[in-house]
């Protein structure tokens, strides 16, 4: 399963960096990456195609893994960070930083992470320890409130800023640069090993809080895992905006591919595939129009959410 998904990701990645309005052949890609300068192709690959694809993979991994942790820990496929308001929290903080504080760069990323953590803690305080429908409803209500705050800030923004602000509404890989990628990969390198250790208890936690405690899972383990997931999502939003529904879709898709068993790595790979593929579609589906990637993922994700609601697969309690 992991091998299959990895192969698919490599394929999508290669398609993304070679095909398009300007085709760069695979041999040329190898030559450019190893240092040869090819006029035109070098610029397109190194300044657009390659960084976009790499950022797509990193952000997709972060959203996929973060979403799957939420859904598994809270035992509810609806309780993904983009549904319960964590992503919007990051967006709101980012937009506030741009429009009101007029800051960019590290301050912006830090604000996005703080926004994500703030919403997560807020939801937790409002809901209490009981996950479930109440959590989703509180999250949706909070998201709506935050969206209106973003819309208000949007009307106050300078004309130059509106394009940037728009990214934090929809999610886009358009403003990619290599420093962002470096920061994001560094963070993932730190977070992923921590996750591997922490998530060892996920199989026990799935059996309910009491059973997990009976199996020796420390009581605060679930909260710790959620915090790591919030960080992943916050960092992802800081880099590319809240690419809608990726965190929500990746977990359930990986799960069904894995014979119904939860797989964090699988969810990360599915997330990466979705983002890179959606970015390719967004860039080339309509000639001369470069949609933000979030438009495509949103178009795919919304029907899936409706299907989940219609078939009643919103709770795995039995």
């Amino acid at each position, binding site marked *: 399963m992991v091998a299959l998904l990895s192969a698919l990701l490599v394929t999508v990645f290669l398609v993304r960096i070679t095909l398009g309005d300007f085709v760069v052949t695979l041999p040329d890609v190898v030559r450019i990456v190893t240092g040869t300068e090819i006029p035109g192709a070098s610029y397109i690959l190194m300044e657009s195609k390659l960084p976009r694809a790499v950022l797509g993979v990193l952000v997709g991994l972060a959203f996929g893994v973060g979403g799957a942790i939420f859904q598994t820990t809270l035992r509810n496929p609806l309780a993904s960070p983009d549904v319960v308001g964590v992503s919007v929290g990051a967006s709101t903080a980012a937009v506030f930083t741009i429009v009101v504080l007029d800051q960019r760069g590290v301050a912006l990323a830090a604000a996005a992470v703080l926004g994500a953590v703030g919403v997560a803690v807020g939801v937790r305080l409002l809901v209490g320890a009981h996950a479930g429908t109440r959590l989703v409803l509180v999250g949706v209500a909070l998201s709506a409130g935050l969206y209106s705050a973003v819309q208000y800030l949007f009307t106050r923004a300078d004309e130059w800023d509106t394009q940037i602000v728009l990214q934090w509404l929809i999610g886009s890989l358009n403003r990619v640069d290599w420093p962002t990628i470096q920061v994001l990969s560094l963070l993932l390198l730190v977070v992923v090993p921590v996750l591997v250790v922490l998530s060892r208890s996920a199989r*026990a936690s799935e059996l*309910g809080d009491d059973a997990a*405690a009976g199996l*020796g*899972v420390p009581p605060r383990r679930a909260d710790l895992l959620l915090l790591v997931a919030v960080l992943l999502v916050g960092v992802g939003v800081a880099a590319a905006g809240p690419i809608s529904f990726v965190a929500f879709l990746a977990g359930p898709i990986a799960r069904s591919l894995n014979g119904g068993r939860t797989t964090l790595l699988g969810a990360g790979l599915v997330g990466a595939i979705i983002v890179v593929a959606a970015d390719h579609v967004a860039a080339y589906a309509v000639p001369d129009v470069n949609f933000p990637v979030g438009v495509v993922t949103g178009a795919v994700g919304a029907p899936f959410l409706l299907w989940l609601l219609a078939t009643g697969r919103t709770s795995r309690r039995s």
Partner: protein
Amino acid sequence: MPDLPALPDRSRTAGARLRTERVTLGYGDRAVVTDLTTAVPDGKVTVIVGANACGKSTLLRGMARLLRPTGGSVLLDGEAIASLPSRQVARTLGLLPQDPVTPEGVSVVDLVGRGRHPHQGALRRWSAADEDAVAEALRLTDTLDLAERLVDELSGGQRQRVWIAMALAQQTELLLLDEPTTYLDVAHQVEVLDLLAELNEARSTTVVMVLHDLNLAARYADHLVAMRAGRIVAAGTPAEVITEPCVSEVFGMACRVVPDPVTGTPMVVPLGRAARHRTQEVPA
């Protein structure tokens, strides 16, 4: 309310790895169990009974380290259980909660294998010992045939056996069960309790469980603890505890106690209003 004679609690003299010392347990500010001291006799089946909301499940949860005492302590091998590492407790003491969650699409062998969690470390993954423990748990619970089936597809009785197998795979010397027979019909209740009694005999596992049915409790318990309003009213053998005055105090219900025709253990026959009514109508 008649005065009850102080019953000798034989568990205090016997060995007791799990005991409570004036423990107070509750949720938030509300204390459900207050100042309770008791001991679980080693290698025996202990059953906690009492009316709804008397604190029996809370006591069990406290013993299983799910609740941190707000006063006093729960002692496991002489040490406060709250201060012991989670994993160490989970290797000694297993718990089957009242309402565990069955993950979607999980097979029997996968679920039972999760009972090995406290025996696995960051470096030590699945081993031959784990394999053996799972196989033995499946065999003891008579669920080997079900190993590859999905837990969702099983009947209530089969599913409960599988959950017990999960707790057995944990290979603990103490096993705590919160109402293991809820949602089961009477035949499956007896089946599950027979299984636990056999385990207790075969492996001398110390079993502690909360049960609702007094007559089944009297039948399967070596040691019976009757609770009311967060305190122990009586503790001892079923014959010592199940008496008419005691049942009347614990459940507020008038009854007759007669010998169980099958086992000779005490059997509670409630009087109830309907029963009284009918005996008047039928001429003797």
